[in-house]
């Protein structure tokens, strides 16, 4: 094995080992988890998965909640960001630069700080525990990144195309629908997947906004499972939850990895 292959192996080991460990643990009996001396053949069980799937609310419920929330956030973000990005590109240079700086600043903002005010809003408007309502602040948090990526995409289009479309008799809406939006499709896909991942991963705001068990998103549910008992940590169940919860995300990332990479790449180069 040459030197590069060694590095690659180390890299893969570093990246994947913790997850593989979770996978192995999820099939390990509770007894074997704390006792390395248990004979190999007696270490394995499906009990953790059974516990998880028969729990109340059932585990797949959390996956569903996260999916609903993430989908709603993504749709709302894209719907707001595309027209806004187009508008930004049409602004005079000075305004565009200022806006870009402000948006970049918002992208850097540590959003965890917003939890208190958003909690108050949720309570006073009686929107706590509504997944769809939570999508609204999520969109706001995703908009900076979406705007940066989509403005860069619109800027990348030759200006003549918009002009030619105007002379063909197309109104603004028609131009967006037939020419501009189709042409930025790759950037839109990248943005969508990044927003989707963010919504799935978000924790502090979901933690304070949602309280009912049936409404919890995956990260919140996981944290609850981790802290559910003061005396013993249900580690096996937690490992099983990790495996089940991670699967959809891992599949998503592997499927869309090209879009994710190009989204982050373009963001970095143009930002």
């Amino acid at each position, binding site marked *: 094995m040459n030197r590069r292959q060694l590095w690659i192996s180390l890299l893969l080991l570093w990246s994947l080992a913790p997850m593989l460990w979770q996978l192995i643990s999820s099939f390990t009996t509770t007894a074997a988890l704390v006792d390395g001396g248990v004979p190999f053949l007696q270490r394995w069980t499906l009990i953790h998965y059974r516990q998880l799937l028969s729990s109340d609310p059932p585990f797949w419920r959390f996956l569903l909640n996260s999916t609903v929330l993430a989908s709603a956030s993504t749709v709302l973000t894209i719907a707001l960001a595309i027209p806004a990005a*187009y508008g930004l590109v049409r602004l005079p240079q000075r305004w565009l630069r200022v806006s870009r700086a402000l948006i970049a600043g918002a992208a850097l903002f*540590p959003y965890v700080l917003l939890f208190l005010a958003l909690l108050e809003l949720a309570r006073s408007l009686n929107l706590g525990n509504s997944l769809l309502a939570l999508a609204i602040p999520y969109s*706001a948090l995703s908009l900076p990144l979406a705007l940066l990526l989509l403005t860069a995409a619109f800027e990348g289009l030759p200006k003549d195309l918009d002009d030619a479309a105007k002379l063909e008799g197309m109104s*603004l809406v028609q131009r967006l629908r037939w020419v501009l939006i189709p042409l930025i499709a790759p950037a839109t896909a990248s943005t969508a997947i990044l927003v989707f991942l963010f919504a799935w*991963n978000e924790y*502090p705001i979901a933690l*304070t906004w949602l309280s009912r068990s049936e409404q919890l998103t995956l990260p919140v549910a*996981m944290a609850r499972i981790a802290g559910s008992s003061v005396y013993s*940590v249900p580690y096996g169940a937690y*490992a099983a939850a990790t495996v089940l919860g991670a699967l959809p995300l891992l599949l998503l990332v592997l499927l869309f990895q090209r879009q994710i990479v190009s989204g982050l790449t373009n963001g970095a180069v143009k930002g």
Partner: protein
Amino acid sequence: MTWLLLTPALLLMALIFGWPMLRYAWLSFHANSVLTGLVPVANGGANWMRLLADDRFWQDVLQTSRFALVSVTAELFLALLIALLLDQRWRGRGAVRALTLLPWALPTTMMALGWRWIFNTPYGPLEAVAGFVGLGPLNLMASPQWTWLATVVADVWKTTPFITLILLAGLQTIPADLYAAFRLEGGRSIQALRDITLPLLLPYILLSLLFRLAQAFGVFDLIQVLTGGGPAGSTESLALYAYFNAMRFLDFGYSATVMLGGFLLLSLSILLGALALRLSGALRPLQP
């Protein structure tokens, strides 16, 4: 007409980013806790005076800064190595790149308990490896001195892929011809790294630095689940402290003060850092 396109998005952002800060500013000058029956009562600058004298707050500032600096430095270093590796052309590169991206995709809370178990003494695999190598019981999760390192490891594991992608993007903007010309001038690979790669990568490094420092400042998910702030508050972050004040102690006024105070400190450090960079001339290659 253009403004119509922009308004919904800008309005939403202004609302969600702007309103909380205004609200916190107002709250920080009011007492709003169990003691006041959860009704805000103006108390002048009492919260702020309390903040200035609050040892726990300043301890958290130090801890959070320590966490952020060490974590981000380690990530940058590691990400650079990985990016250099991924920038070269070899078979299976795309697949490896995708696989290294996976840690970043998973929610922090999901892997946090896993890390707790990995570091667990005496049952975790880290302990097993340490025992194998001959090191004594590490007890990493129960040491006020060293547990924070465990949080750094977990954080580095999750966020390095993100920085790797940014640096990789930067590496790919460097024309291959530059290296060829450098070789013809008699330079060697290590020198190329120093003279060509790093200077041209500087904007991307700074971008990652800025982004990650701001994020690390707000670290919450990891700390809450991995250590809960302990042992003895040695890993507690500012965000966690603010959270405790609001949700556990039900002192909303002070929680707002903690957050606002922390945010001001962060902004100040970023501004000072940017100023220092400007003055030192390190930013000159970035000027248009």
